[in-house]
């Protein structure tokens, strides 16, 4: 497997709580991989460690065989690892278009070879326009985030992350607050980006949607990796059934 992201033995402890326990896994290049687990499983902490919003106590994170675990978060972003947040986050005083432009300026010019998803070609204005068109946000280009619907805010956040021209996008609970139709509308956009070479790691606790969407799944529970496999394998895993159906004793 050609792994774009390799995580080895990642751990983090907050006082007496071991939030992430020696987690290791790979994400294949161009894949759409899911990380699921019930609330409190340590998924968001894990994302924070990989993107260096928090420093791991132990472990390594390699993106394209380059170490990320010793870089500050802005360098991780510039190296091509972008993320979105569980609670929607945009620069609230800037318009949607400005939010995108800001990421383009700080992330550096689109430089990742082999990527072809929207918003990579041309100058900032052309890239912004292409991303806005792609996410059907053109009518909202001059709106502030506070004036957007939840759906549009989420789209704008994903568009802003893509404005960095990342190789790998980690989406933390991207479907939170979405209806099934809205979730699948966003998935269609993400799949189009995947065809353009983007690798994605989706983090969510919605088993139903994740099973349908992801090609491969990792399951976290109590900070540790509980299971891994294709959606069918995970669905049949007794440990996962216990955790999700509450049959654990």
């Amino acid at each position, binding site marked *: 497997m050609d792994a774009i992201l390799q995580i080895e033995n990642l751990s983090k402890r907050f006082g007496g709580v071991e939030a992430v326990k020696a987690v290791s896994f790979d994400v294949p290049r161009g894949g759409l991989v899911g990380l699921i687990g019930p609330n409190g499983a340590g998924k968001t902490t894990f994302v924070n460690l990989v*993107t260096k*919003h928090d420093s791991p106590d132990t472990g390594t994170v390699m993106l394209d065989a380059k170490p990320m675990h010793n870089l*500050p*978060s*802005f360098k991780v*972003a*510039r190296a091509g690892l*972008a*993320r979105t*947040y569980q609670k929607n*986050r*945009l*620069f*609230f*005083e*800037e318009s949607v278009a400005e939010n995108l432009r*800001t*990421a383009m*300026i*700080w*992330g*550096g010019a689109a430089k990742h070879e082999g990527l072809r998803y929207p918003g990579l070609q041309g100058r900032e204005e052309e890239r912004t326009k292409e991303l806005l068109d792609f996410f059907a946000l053109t009518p909202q280009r001059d709106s502030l985030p506070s004036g957007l619907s939840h759906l549009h805010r989420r789209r704008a956040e994903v568009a*802003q*992350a893509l*404005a*960095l021209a990342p190789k790998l996008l980690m989406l933390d609970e991207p479907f939170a607050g979405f209806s099934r139709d809205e979730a699948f509308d966003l998935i269609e956009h993400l799949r189009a980006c995947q065809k353009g070479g983007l690798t994605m790691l989706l983090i969510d606790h919605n088993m139903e949607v994740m099973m349908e969407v992801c090609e491969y799944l990792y399951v976290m529970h109590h900070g540790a990796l509980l299971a891994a496999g294709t959606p069918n394998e995970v669905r049949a895993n007794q440990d996962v059934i216990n955790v999700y159906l509450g049959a654990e004793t």
Partner: protein
Amino acid sequence: MIERLLPSSTARAIIGWLIVAAILVLLWALVGNNYHLRLLISAGTAMIAVIPFGLLMGHMGYMAMGQGGFVGVGAYVIGCFTVQRFELDFWAVLPVSIIITAVLAYGFSFLLFRLRGYHFSIGTLALGQLLYLAFDSWEWVTGGPHGTSGIPRPAIGEYVFGTNSRFFILVAVILFISAFSSWWLARGQVGRALSAIRQDEDLAAARGLNVLRYKQFIFVFAAVWAGVSGALYAAMQISIDPSSFTIWSSFQQVIYVIIGGTGTLLGPAIGVIFITFLDQLIADFGVWNQLILGSLIVITVLFFRGGLWGGIRMLARLALNAVGLARAAKAPRPGAAE
């Protein structure tokens, strides 16, 4: 509608800076009274520190409460090198003062920017107090509690900035540079970065911004201008002692920004002017003057979230709206009978 009534942003900037320069020249030409000149010098010296500090506190959202310490460092370096230990020229010492302040601020920034929010404020408060204790204790450099006296007024060749009228020119020129450099930073990439840090610094980092570098840069920038302000203060006062650089002097800078208005460059300047003249107005009220000042701060925070400058802008916007509406009402409606 309002936009059509206003000139473009570049034209506004040029007009604005010409007005600032004109005001400074007019003040120099028209104010002859020594006492009033002294007040203007005092206010100008404070503005040199407070306008750049507005970038740190207002634009970036980091309320530093130890700026008075950096004012003291600038002042004592001048005192030490021009009279206390050496007898060097003011202009030779000023770059030394800038470098020492910058190095100190840069060094402490590594510790301080491990903190955020109130923790950062408390950290800077401790730094301000630490510097005050150094001024009070390090007699060899500062003269200790008695301070340093006999600091010479700066001179360029034979032209000594000895009188208040001449010293005002010096303060006005340096104030112009301080304000212009702050404006230049605020309008470009630095301003965009500071605003993003204030809004959500984790998000800014996740989108590729080197947050720590910008925070350190603006902290050092504000500290350097505080040091320059201190250098001028020392030269103006001729003698300095630690009582001028207590925590209260740091609080004053915060008050200037809050009263004048955060997030703008004019706000802190208006805050300095307002407090300077208010101080004169209420000077005769004895102990009550602090109560009046405190009440005004509370009123401003409660009712004018944008400070005095925010209030002025709101009134101007209302007036422009009224003018726009009046024009629209007078204009003939399309299709109306002649």
